[in-house]
């Protein structure tokens, strides 16, 4: 935690891409503009503002969304394209700020110390950034500016879509206290419902509850709510993102019970997840596998590795074991996923006691493999364990074309 604010205070800009996936689809296809559009498979990943007017929301089941909004256009989506748009937008944001912490559809930009660069007018900087994003990508973004990440995010949330708002220094408390409870970061549908039952509807109302009440109600996150409803957030903008977890999951093109296909897909997802961890310089300590049966039920299981690892083989060995324990019914699978968590920063791992050279050889192997794939695309090398996917799935430079890739946000 960075408790020391620089003289003049910290300035954080929060940038949020409005209705991200759906907006890109509307951009790519002008016939979709002005129409309710949903991107998702099984559940809504993103929906246009036209669809939201019918009560559609992210996470909602598609069957429900179809009932709520007859005639809605539903698209599978293309994760690769969305990432390309996001990368372009965050590249533009880096022209405004030296420190940008980017997620899939939002970013925090630390503007502290850039007053001279922006002529002392951060609102104008926000307006310029919005205009630049619109010109270069055709997409609308909402920008909020405040003295902390939380205030900046709440500012942008309060003026979505296509809005721009700055909470002036010293005005944080009056701004926060009157807002509805669901505008507070960390308050989702479930938390909001519990608070509503207690007749707490504004952030000011939440301040009545003690830290003990909040931790009893919500566990550890209750502590954050206690601090946040008082406007306290000193979390700095972290350029190097250390995620809570890295997950990769997908649906099969057709439900399958073929062990080679299931295991091949799990290996491929593991390879992709572990490569991301290596790129971030992280070693995972916990591996989770989940499967989705065609009838119903999505069991998941996680376990700790003996030692933190960033090697495909070691993580897959555990993942395959978990898969064996999970897939116990003679029922085909609709989808599969894996997740890595409890990361150690690279270099903090444990050395192999009996054969330290083996570990070094493997590290060199994976480093070379990553370089080849960075240069020629992931499909340049297909591991034997996922060779069963060849011929079943199309390949492009990015890798196998999955039906519904779902990545860590």
């Amino acid at each position, binding site marked *: 935690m960075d408790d020391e604010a620089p003289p003049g205070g910290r300035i954080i800009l929060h940038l949020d891409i409005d209705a991200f996936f759906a907006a*890109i689809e509307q951009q790519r296809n002008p016939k979709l503009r002005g129409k309710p559009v949903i991107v998702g498979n099984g559940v809504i990943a993103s929906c246009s503002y036209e669809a939201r007017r019918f009560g559609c929301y992210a996470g909602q089941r598609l069957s429900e969304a179809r009932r709520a909004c007859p005639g809605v256009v539903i698209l599978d989506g293309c994760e690769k394209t969305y990432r390309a748009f996001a990368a*372009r937008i965050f590249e533009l944001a880096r022209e405004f700020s030296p420190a940008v912490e980017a997620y899939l559809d939002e970013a925090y930009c630390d503007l502290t110390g850039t007053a001279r660069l922006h002529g002392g007018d951060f609102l104008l900087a926000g307006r310029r950034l919005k205009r630049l994003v619109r010109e270069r990508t055709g997409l609308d973004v909402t920008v909020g500016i405040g003295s902390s990440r939380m205030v900046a995010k709440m500012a942008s949330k309060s003026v979505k879509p296509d809005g721009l708002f700055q909470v002036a220094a010293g005005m944080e408390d009056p701004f926060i206290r009157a807002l509805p409870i669901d505008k507070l970061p960390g308050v989702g549908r479930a938390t909001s419902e519990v608070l509503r039952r207690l007749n707490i509807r504004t952030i000011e109302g939440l301040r009545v509850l003690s830290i003990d009440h909040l931790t009893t109600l919500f566990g550890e996150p209750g502590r954050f709510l206690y601090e946040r409803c008082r406007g306290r957030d000193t979390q700095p903008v972290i350029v190097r993102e250390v995620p809570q977890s890295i997950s990769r999951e997908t649906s099969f093109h057709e439900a399958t019970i073929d062990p080679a296909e299931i295991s091949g897909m799990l290996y491929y997802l593991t390879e992709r997840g572990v490569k991301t961890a290596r790129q971030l310089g992280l070693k995972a300590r916990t591996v989770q596998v989940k499967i989705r049966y065609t009838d119903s039920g999505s069991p998941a299981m996680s376990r700790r590795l003996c030692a933190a690892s960033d090697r495909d083989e070691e993580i897959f060995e555990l993942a395959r074991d978990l898969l064996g324990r999970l897939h116990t019914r003679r029922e085909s699978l609709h989808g599969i996923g894996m997740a890595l968590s409890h990361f150690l920063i690279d270099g903090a791992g444990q050395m192999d006691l009996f054969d330290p050279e083996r570990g070094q050889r493997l590290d060199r192997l994976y480093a070379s493999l990553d370089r080849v794939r960075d240069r020629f695309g992931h499909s340049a090398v297909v591991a034997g364990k996922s060779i069963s996917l060849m011929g079943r799935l199309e390949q492009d*430079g990015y890798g196998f074309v999955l039906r519904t890739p779902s990545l860590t946000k």
Partner: protein
Amino acid sequence: MRVERIDESVKVRADFQGGGITPLLFRRGSQDYRVSTVNARWEDREGMQKLLYFSVTATNGDLFQLKFHAGDMLWTLETVTLDG
């Protein structure tokens, strides 16, 4: 709305002025399609090679996606989006 994959190499007449690329016309088989609007453009990479994507509407109203492989200077007609 239906997206059909084509993945065919096509000849494209494009404007390379001002540091950007704008496809103007492409030929698929013996038919020419004149581009009326470039709806969206984005960049991606295949390894170290830069790929440029264009969503374009032809003058006949059809919607296509073109890909330009900057490494080998090849154009690919990736998809056509059909109504219904």
